[in-house]
């Protein structure tokens, strides 16, 4: 049992979470009220991540709402969403903490000019500490936990994963100059991955895993209408159907929810209420972003795309 009894999780925090999210239905309603539509699988995954508590690893095609899920979860808790975007070469100084060197140098000079003695310990205090995302999430005062989103973990090096593992397991970090910082309230951790490489089994072992599928057309309509206020219902349905049709073509980048939302946003801005080939023609760049894909769509016909074979 590594996860369930994470050290540092104060009982009050756990009780507060239980009060805020008593069961999956309540969580679903809360997400819903924030404009995030989660299917039962994702709702269950988020619920367990909150209540076990355990880090949640989300995978799925780009644009199915992995990042958005973490944002909505933070919204439900009323806690800050602390995001760490991973990239090749990400290191502890950017993920955890860094000392504010310019400020330290300044303090040294200031102390010199005033003739005040300055000990080394005076320079390594809280005031000179820059909290990077992981430390910021750990030191979030509560009462409800912060949501720490570690986005695209597969982009970071594998040694960063090992480091992360330690933080997740202990809910604490050690700063040589300050000592060990224990989490006031263990943050809710959501990791996302695009599967560009396999994650360590050890990391996966500590996480709940959920694969987000591309939602069905009705759900897309519903999501789009929520995300773009003032959308004509007919337009949302047209766009969802067109995107579904486009996904059957062998395009390089099948459009996801994000593209659907952008497309509806663009069409709404142009005052379009029903999708027609002309409107699709003007806004195609919002939907497909490879020249080859654009060619493919045009070859297949814009009339086909918008579902009007006669054009």
């Amino acid at each position, binding site marked *: 049992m590594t*996860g369930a009894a994470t050290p540092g999780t104060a009982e009050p925090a756990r009780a507060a979470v239980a009060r805020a999210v008593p069961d999956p239905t309540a969580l679903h309603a809360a997400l819903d009220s924030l404009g995030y539509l989660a299917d039962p699988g994702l709702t269950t995954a988020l619920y367990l991540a909150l209540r076990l508590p355990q880090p949640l690893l989300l995978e799925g095609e780009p644009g199915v709402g992995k990042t958005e899920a973490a944002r909505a979860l933070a919204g439900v808790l009323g806690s800050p969403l602390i995001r760490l975007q991973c990239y090749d070469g990400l290191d502890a100084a950017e993920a955890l903490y860094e000392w504010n060197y310019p400020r330290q140098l300044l303090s040294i000079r200031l102390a010199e000019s005033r003739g005040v003695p300055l000990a080394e310990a005076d320079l390594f205090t809280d005031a000179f500490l820059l909290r990077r995302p992981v430390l910021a999430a750990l030191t979030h005062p509560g009462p409800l936990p912060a949501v720490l989103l570690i986005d695209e973990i597969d982009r970071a090096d594998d040694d960063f994963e090992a480091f992360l593992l330690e933080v997740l397991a202990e809910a604490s970090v050690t700063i040589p100059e300050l000592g060990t910082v224990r989490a006031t309230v263990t943050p809710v951790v959501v990791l996302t991955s695009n599967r*560009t490489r396999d994650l360590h089994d050890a990391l996966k072992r500590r996480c709940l895993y959920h*694969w987000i599928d591309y939602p069905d057309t009705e759900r897309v309509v519903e999501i789009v209408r929520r995300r773009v206020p003032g959308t004509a219902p007919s337009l949302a349905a047209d766009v969802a159907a067109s995107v579904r049709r486009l996904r059957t073509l062998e395009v390089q980048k099948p459009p996801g929810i994000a593209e659907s939302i952008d497309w509806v946003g663009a069409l709404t801005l142009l005052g379009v209420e029903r999708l027609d080939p002309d409107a699709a023609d003007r806004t195609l760049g919002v939907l497909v972003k490879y020249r080859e894909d654009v060619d493919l769509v045009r070859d297949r016909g814009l009339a086909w795309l918008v579902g009007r074979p006669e054009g």
Partner: protein
Amino acid sequence: MAAPPAGLPPFDRPAFAARFGAALHRAGVPVTPERSARFLDVLHLLPPVDPPTLYWAARLAFVTAREQIEPFDRVFAALFGGRADPADSRGAPGNPPLPGLEPGPGAPPAAAPAPPRRSGPRSPLPHGPLHRDTVGEAPGRPARTGAERLVGSAAEALAQQDFGTFGPGELAELDRLSADLAISVPLRRTRRREADPRGRHIDLRRSLRRSLRTGGETVRLARSHGRLRRRPLVLLCDVSGSMEPYTRVYVRFFSRLCARAGSGVAAEIFVFATRLTRLTPVLRHTSPDAALRRASRAAPDWSGGTLIGRALAEFTDRFGRRGMARGAVVVIFSDGWEGEDPSAVGRETARLSRLAHRVVWVNPRKAAPGYAPLAAGIAAALPHCDAFVSGHSLAAMADVFDAIAGRGPSAAARPARTPRARP
């Protein structure tokens, strides 16, 4: 175990979790006792009041990768009659709920009778090899091609021998040889810094530390430099009929080289005939031969015609563009015989070359006297490759290594940049 009970015995959750876990494990989902324990925790939070709830509770507790969803669904369906996917099963009549589940958290006895049921006709493991046994055994076939003759002979003879004639003896010798080889992949600079007195960047943190030693006066600046890392290596191996004996050697050879501790090379290995199969995760736990056998079982088109263009497209779409091919060295092992659309090979190689650092094409046929890249597929692909080598024997593998490392290729390895051979 016991027959499905009429009177409901007390629901033994730990036993239920353990049996469920065992059934999944048999189906290939890597379940550990830790996972079963987590399933227990989940059951406490989410009493299995209906099949969808049980489905999600179990899937979230046990499944750790997308590939496991399919075997999980199979086991779940076998155990509980019908995949309880909420999308299609809510209240569906054809989806009988777990007997005894409805009354609430106290009830389900269903796991007890279940394992015998699943080990019956739908057992995913035993039925696999049955009708494909012959294909599955195929990699062992060339064993009779004079294997014993060469065992114990010098590595020299082995070095010139065509991979296509390798038997178990040569393969074992190859394993011994590959223990002494090291593969070198080009480097790239990362954003991570390391101390370097002649580095380009000033390392403020260490500079300040030093200045404290000299009374707050910065005497010497500490410098750092971007760290160098090896580029990832991606191997795409054609396993269609004629390439298959070579692929067997390549997969074995490279998986050993890269798996060796301290090789510092992250390699991804794929095989393709008409579709693409990723071998990397399988190779971590299985021997290369067994992995290839398993891949052949999963791909019914094994040893059939080759759709190189489509396989390359699938790689780029599913893995390459998301990052696997970015900045990587991509090596394609194929004779370039495209079964469908040769122009697709050119198009897809071009796409790949825009993503990758280098694209190396290895074609064992190149060694044949008088070879010219006339196969339409390879003719279309060559303009987009950085190197074109034969790699048909151990000696020829030296060229492959050079091509991967991007070292000044020997004249023979120069790619036909001008597609003069295009028919």
